[in-house]
Every structure is written in C-alpha cells, then in structure tokens.
C-alpha cells in the first residue's frame, strides 16, 4: 500500500499533468505549428545555407540534431508562457489555492509540458528516417533519452521565467532574449570548431550546446561531436538538478 501522503502527491501530479496534456491535444493549431515550424526552418536553413557549401545534403544531416533540440527549446519556453497565461485567465489561482504543495505544482506542470515537448521531438526524430537519418535501435533510444533530460531542464527554465512575469505581453522579450540566443548559440546550425574565443565561451554557457553535441554524437557519430558524450550528459543532468531547485523556490514565492 502506498501511504496517504504519496497518494495525495500522485493524484495532484496526475491532475496537473492531465490538464496540460488535454489542453495541448485540444489546441490543434498548437500541435500542428509545433511540429511544422521546426521542419519549415529545417528546410529553409538546410537548403539555404547548405547551398553555399555545394553539398546541401551533408549540411542538412549536420543540422538535424539541432532542430530536434529546437523543438524542445521552443516548446519549453512556451510552457513558461503558458503559466503567465494561466495567471491571466486565473486558472493558476484555482491551482494555488488547493492544498497541493508548490513543489507538486511545479513538477506537475513540468511533466505536463514535457509530454507535449517530447511528443513533438520524438515525432521529428522519427521523421528523420525519411530525411535520410540512419538510426540503430540503440541510437534511437539514446536520442530519446537525451531529448528527455534536455526537455526537463528547458521546461523548468520556461516555468521559472513565467513565474516571475506579470503579463503575457512581456513574453515577446523572452523569445528575443532567451529562446533565440539559446538556439543560435547552441551550434545547432554551424560547427563549433573555428569560432572566436568570446563566442566559444558563450556557446559553452548555453545548455542547449550540450544537448545538440550529444545528439550529434549519437545520431551522426563521434566525429561530429566536439565534447565527450559523458560530459554532455553530466552537464545536462547538472542543469536539470539546478532547475529543479530554482523551480521549486520560484514556485514557493509565486504570488498573484
């Protein structure tokens, strides 16, 4: 038998998860755009930039892992936007007034948005087969695992930022100052080898860099990666733990 306290937390987490997931599946346009947008950018970048190098196919393969990370970055920070929206439409009040602890609320929200983000990125991962990616069973499963630990950290970051924001109007700034730097500095669309030092430093601060690097290692092979995969994974896990602490703290101080 599970204890009463555990049952309470599980019910709470399930309720929070269910709500996020249902809202996601009922907003068809959101499902569509979250899959279509990365694909759209993938073809623009792949063919546009790829044409300069003469061999578009190689370049497209090179940036594919970056676009998997991109779906996570965009969805993750969208989850943050959603909590600002929740404040606005007052559904958040209904959650905050329940006896659930703020830690439960934070993890429930994170789980809900993670489901959204992972459905999309796994879908794109599978589409990779038609784009000429050659997976083995283990590389496919490993990619899923990497996307999982990356998604958790990014969604937590989104929730943390969202919990500090007063209104959805400020969200445009977040996309300019957080989403695009995270994406563009991750090396998703260019190799990290010959960068100027200042930019190298910036790319190393960006957690997305490690996700992209690990995915390249697993999907394309070791010679496409810049860092040892264990280092990548260690950094991502460290980021996850850090976000769990900051997230719980941010939700505890969350006021309306």
């Amino acid at each position, binding site marked *: 038998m599970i204890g009463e306290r555990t*049952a*309470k937390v599980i*019910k*709470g987490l*399930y*309720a*929070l998860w*269910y*709500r996020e997931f*249902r*809202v996601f599946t*009922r*907003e068809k346009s959101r499902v569509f755009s979250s899959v279509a947008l990365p694909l759209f950018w993938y073809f623009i970048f792949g063919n546009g930039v790829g044409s300069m190098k003469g061999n578009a196919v190689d370049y497209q393969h090179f940036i594919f892992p970056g676009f998997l990370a991109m779906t996570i970055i965009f969805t993750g920070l969208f989850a943050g936007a959603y909590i600002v929206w929740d404040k*606005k*439409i*007052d*559904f958040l*009040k*209904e*959650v*905050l*007034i*329940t*006896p*659930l*602890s703020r830690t439960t609320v934070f993890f429930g929200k994170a789980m809900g948005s993670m489901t959204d983000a992972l459905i999309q990125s796994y879908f794109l991962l599978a589409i990779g087969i038609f784009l000429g990616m050659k997976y083995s069973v283990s590389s496919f499963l490993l990619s899923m695992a990497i996307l999982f630990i990356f998604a958790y950290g990014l969604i937590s970051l989104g929730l943390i930022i969202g919990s500090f924001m007063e209104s959805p109007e400020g969200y445009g700034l977040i996309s300019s100052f957080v989403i695009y730097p995270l994406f563009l500095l991750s090396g998703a669309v260019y190799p990290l080898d010959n960068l100027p030092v200042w930019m190298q430093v910036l790319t190393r601060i960006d957690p997305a860099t490690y996700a992209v690097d690990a995915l390249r290692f697993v999907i394309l092979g070791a010679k496409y990666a810049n860092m040892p995969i264990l280092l990548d994974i260690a950094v991502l896990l460290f980021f996850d733990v850090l976000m769990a602490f900051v997230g719980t703290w941010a939700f505890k101080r969350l*006021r*309306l």
Partner: protein
Amino acid sequence: MDIIQIKNLTKQYDKLTAVDGISFDVKEGEIFGLLGPNGAGKTTTLMMLSTLLKPTSGFASVNGHDVVKQQGLVRNSIGMVFQDPSSDTLLSGYENLKLHALMYNLPLKEINSRIDKVLDLVDLQKRKHDVVKKYSGGMRRRLEIARGLLHSPKVFFLDEPTLGLDPQTRDHIWEYIQNLAKQTKMTIIVTTHYMEEAEKLCNRIAIIDHGKIAALDSPANLKRALGGDKVILKGRIDTETLKKFPFVKKAEVIEGAVHLSVEQAGKNLQELLCSAGDVENVEVHSPDLNDVFLNLTGRAMREEGEASSYIQDITRAT
C-alpha cells in the same frame, strides 16, 4: 470560537493601503457580506483570508488556522469562487471538477458521486461533458460554484458571484447560495458591490470603503440606524425651513436634489410639502443599503464603472 477571526489586518502596496487595519469575526453558519465599491479592499481581504496574498501586518484565522503560518490547513478548510472566471475553457465541466477533486485528494471512489451531487445543485448535469468554452457566463459561474463546493469546505468564499451576469441568472445564483446555506452548516463569505445582493443574501454586512470598515451589522439594523424614511425633493426647495421640523433628521443637497431623512414620512409628508417651497418632484422610499452607504461615506456607489472595467479586462484577456 468564531470560524473567522480578523484583527488589524492590513495590506500595504508601495503607496497604497488596500486594506487598512480591519477587524471583525464571522460566526459559523453565517452568510457574511463585504459590501463596498470597486477598489474598497474586498477582494484583497478575501485573497489574504484564502492565503493567496500575504498580509503586511495583522492577524487572521480561518477555521482556527492562522492564514500565514498554517496555509495548508487553511486551504483544506476553504472553497473559493473567484471574481474572474478560473475554469479551463478547453476542458469539459466534468473534467474541471475531476481535476479539482484529485487536487483536493478526495477518495477516488467518491469522486463521481460527489461530482453528480454538486452538478445537480447548480443544474448543470446535462451539460457536464461539454467543453466550458461552450458555456454561457452564468453556466460557467455555476460550474465554479459547484467546483468550490466539491470538497465540502467549512468556509466558502464568493468574490462578486454575480458580477457581469444578467438579472435572471443573478436571481438563480442567489437561490443556489441561499439553498446552500439552508442545507449545510457552511459559512459563506460574499463580496459584492450590489446593494440588493448584500441585502437579500447576508445575515450581516460589513460596509467597507477605502480599506476600512465603515459599519458592520445586519441589513435591517443598518437601515434602522438611518432613522426614518428617505424623501427626495426636486425644485426650488427651502431647505433651511425644512431643517426646523422636528421629524426631519437630516437634510442635504446631493446632485441638485434635497435628500431628507424623515421620521414617519407617511404621516408627516403633507406638513413637510406645505413648507418646502416650489416642489417639482417628490420621491419617498424606505431606506435601502444605498442610503446607508451614502450616509456613511457621502458618496453613492457607482455600479456602472465597475461593470465596464470588468468588460475591458475580459476583452483584453481574449
């Protein structure tokens, strides 16, 4: 012991004191009203009692639990209907209730029967599987009332429960609240700026203005304290002469009309009118809470202003 105790409760924002040292107690089973204009501090008070806002100073307890130090216990004891809609429009009515039941850790076996019970109470049984987006404003409010009751709270807070609803729906909601009070021993706290609502529903009313309590009593006592009927005269009125009558308790000019408090107006009206001067129009009515508020604050409550700002909020949010 009183189920709600409030002592010198204060909420201070940078320059604004939203709630300014209020104190009162609410007895178990009472329907207690907080009546006042927009911005008087009603919602802020409710938010502090429900642990969503931290008081700047002072003390409040709900069901014996301190709202600052025992937030979990307080939250377990209360249900709340917020001023703005707070159900999820993409979920069905049933789903909204189910989520609520899970978050309040209700026994799984009881959840469906409890949901049916509260849905019956607010007449939403037939529409329970429709998404809330398809509900009217009144249905949505009823759903949220049902939701707040699902976990059988000891204290039920309703923040402007009929704001923005048409008069017919308003009557229905009053009926639900009154039935609720009759059937259960639940304590109900209602904030409102509708005089009629406060008068009809509440056992006791605290009139709140600028964050302070201006008066607290039963509606009947509040009106009785005014001392007599209201007589409003328009025209070229000789106010000074009227003031000399012993049965005229109070005379003041508000918006071009002379407002008098008159003892036994039915009997004394004739004498009054003979000396009033050039009267164009006479209104006589027994005092209502609007007169009480006017008397206490020197202002009439404006209902239109609030309604329109509510509508603005809605349009911005959608």
